């Protein structure tokens, strides 16, 4: 009997992940601050972090903003043998620290990784065919994720460009938000295409400055993830963007989207970081300004379109 798998975080994504894990017949321990009902006979819910210790592979599915409350106490129950994989689309602090880095700093675990790509809670729960990517330096981490999660319905790729996967995942979240917004104000396919291709190029520049490889952004963690958003995989960032486009105030729009969205706090930090590093990042900059209410949506698009056109 293989060791159980744990999921820390009982939000929409955490529960979807637990369901996908349970499908392979493994026991799944789901930790959630507020105890919830089990979604499956193999899924055991708990509000005691100590129970996570029984698993070897632990998924961390909490918003990065909550990491300081959850991760250090979680670390007290783990040791060097645990494999820790997070699914967050967030980056920590003004220097955009990745979450794997945070996990290494705050827990005794070193064998860490990030799971990213076109993954949405509902598709995971339903077992809709799809793919994902694990960023980790440790082959045994990607093997464990594959073993726990992969099957006929999910292809799990891997890369050792951990930073690329994490930055890609976080910034694609940001682009998806902008995309929803642009769709919401009625932009046509060509405008969207320009927005997205320039957006990915920009994200790649930021990623490279943080130590990522450019190529990673062309894969599942970047373009792949974004294509799924464009195709309408029902991701909350798009919903949020559309709600904002309708003129809804930010906090109300967040409630409408119904999930924790990292993009909002991230946009401003990315914009500041890019300016400090002298990285050309108009898409992130404008997104941050729109979210802050500094420019109107129409002005934002006009600003972007009025930029001098150079070689690609």
């Amino acid at each position, binding site marked *: 009997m293989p060791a159980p798998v744990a999921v820390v975080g009982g939000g929409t994504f955490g529960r979807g992940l637990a369901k996908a894990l349970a499908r392979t017949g493994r026991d799944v321990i789901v930790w959630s601050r507020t105890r919830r009902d089990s979604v499956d006979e193999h899924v055991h819910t708990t509000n005691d972090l100590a129970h996570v210790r029984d698993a070897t592979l632990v998924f961390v599915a909490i918003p990065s903003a909550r990491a300081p409350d959850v991760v250090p106490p979680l670390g007290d129950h783990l*040791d*060097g043998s645990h494999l820790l994989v997070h699914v967050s689309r967030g980056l920590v602090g003004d220097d955009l620290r990745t979450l794997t880095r945070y996990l290494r700093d705050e827990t*005794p675990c070193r*064998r860490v990784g990030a799971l990213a790509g076109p993954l949405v809670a509902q598709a995971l729960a339903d077992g809709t065919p799809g793919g994902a990517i694990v960023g*980790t*330096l*440790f082959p*045994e981490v990607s093997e464990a994720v594959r073993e726990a999660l992969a099957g006929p319905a999910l292809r799990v790729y891997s890369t050792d460009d951990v930073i690329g996967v994490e930055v890609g995942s976080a910034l694609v979240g940001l682009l998806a938000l902008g995309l929803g917004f642009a769709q919401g104000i009625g932009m046509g396919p060509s405008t969207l295409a320009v927005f997205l291709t320039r957006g990915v190029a920009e994200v790649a520049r930021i990623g490279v*400055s943080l130590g990522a490889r450019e190529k990673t952004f062309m894969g599942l963690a970047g373009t792949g993830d974004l294509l799924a958003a464009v195709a309408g995989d029902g991701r909350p960032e798009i919903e949020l963007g559309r709600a904002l486009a309708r003129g809804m105030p930010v906090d109300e729009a967040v409630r409408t989207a119904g999930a924790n969205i990292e993009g909002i706090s991230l946009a401003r930090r990315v914009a500041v970081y890019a300016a400090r590093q002298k990285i050309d990042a108009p898409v992130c900059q404008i997104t941050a300004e729109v979210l802050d209410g500094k420019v109107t949506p129409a002005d934002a698009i006009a600003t972007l379109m009025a930029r001098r056109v150079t070689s690609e």
Partner: protein
Amino acid sequence: MSLLKGAPFRLPRLKPYVPDPGDPPIFWFNGEREDVIRDVTRRAVEKHGIDRAHFEYVLNELAYNEVRRLETQRGDEAREQLPFWRGLVRRIARMSDEEKRATLRTLAERMARDVAGNFDPRVYRIAIRMVPRVLSGVMSPRSLPMQAIAPNVGKLDELVRCEGTTEKLRKLAKIGTLVFVPTHVSNLDSVVLGYVLEREGLPPVVYGAGKNLFSNPVMSFFMHNLGAYRVDRRIKATLYKDVLKSYAGVMVERGYHSLFFPGGTRSRSGLIERHLKLGLAGSAVEAFARNQVRGQKRPILFVPTTINYALVLEAETLVEDWLKEAGKARYIIEDDESTRYERWLDFLRRISGMEGACTIRFGEPLDPFGNEVDDDGRSLTPHGKPIDPATYVSRGGKPIVDTARDVAYTTALGEKLPERYLRETVLMSTQLVAHVLFRKLVRATPSIDLFGRIRHRGDVAMLREDLVRSVGEARDRLLALESDGVLRVSRILRAEPPDRIVERALDVWNGYHAKTAAKESALEITIEEPELLLYYQNRLVPFATRIASEADASAAREIARIGGS
């Protein structure tokens, strides 16, 4: 046929040396030497598994590399060895699998023998009596005759300072195996570090030294007999690298305290090392796993160490090399300042005028997974709870050796060490003065790049009072950062008034470097050689924005980008 020419001289021994139980592990080395060579050979060969095609590849690659190296190198070594390698190239295709394996083993063993060090306690005892006197004698030549008679080494104690976790390391050296991983700026590093280890009651270490350092017979005699092993950077073959890695690993596994420069070569730019590949130091991570599998629980502890000079012997060549971006290609600088004897003398004479010319700082020791340890060598979690390091190399509760995993741990450690370097770097007065002057240059030459700037010789000046005031302000900010634990500041930088700091810096540069870094007149200081200032100030790059005033903020941001992010 011998792979190595001119084996270093060893003293004859009539009866075997029996170490005292209290002696450091290295005293036992000679008894284990043959064993070590056998282990290393076996491991280097085993690494290539049993795949026939792969065996042939390794042999071919070795022969091809050696032929190419010897053909370009020429000389006696080439004349003697080329026929062997050329013959091998021809024979490989006809060899049976058994012959291939046997040849590989023979060659690996020959390499291991060439690499392996020696340790002669007699030489060690001579050295520890002699080195301080010679070093301090050379550092202040006028007092040489007196120094030679009186074993008074007080002077050198002042010149080379040691701080940090020394006390803890003394205790840990008895419980675990210490792996020193210092920053690297000068060829003097290993000598100074070796001296400090002995002076502070820390055990001697084994380390790989470039074969070029063995070319001087006197140096070679000492290095070889003090346990240094030989690294021939000219040999590029995979098998040779495997032998080196195995040697480094086997030594750590057997409990020999070791020294590796994880940056590989001296920092050409003067920047604190940011990206480490670790190289040989990585084998210490695998050594831990191998020991755990055998049930050997002795801790292996990495000691991040910074070696900080107010004046760097080879500064001019190093920075020139960096600017030419030739740093990667030229591993061995054949003719830098450190190979010229009179330059050493001059250098040592010069730093003798400065109190604390070199500061070695030992940081908190870390286990192979980046955890700090307590006084008993037990690993601690980030929140200070003891943790069993064996869990890091275990799967399903059992320790196993997994090369891919250990490579990943090594990469992670390579990210951790530079953070420690930053915290443990001791900033020196010359570096700060250089920084303030260079910042002025950046402000005075807006919107041109580094290469444009270093051509501005003699046309940017700073009023003396401005320089002194700026140095004073930046110093105060450094002190504030020091109290936050961000960095360290040298004793002089902490205690002396800013005008003295400026004076000292100008004095030592101008007296030593062939080029004048900055010229003084009554009222102002003129920047004469921006390259040199750049080199010294590069140590401060990571802190530039945090020690700048409002007016200097923009220049500081530009400086902060030197060397990439």
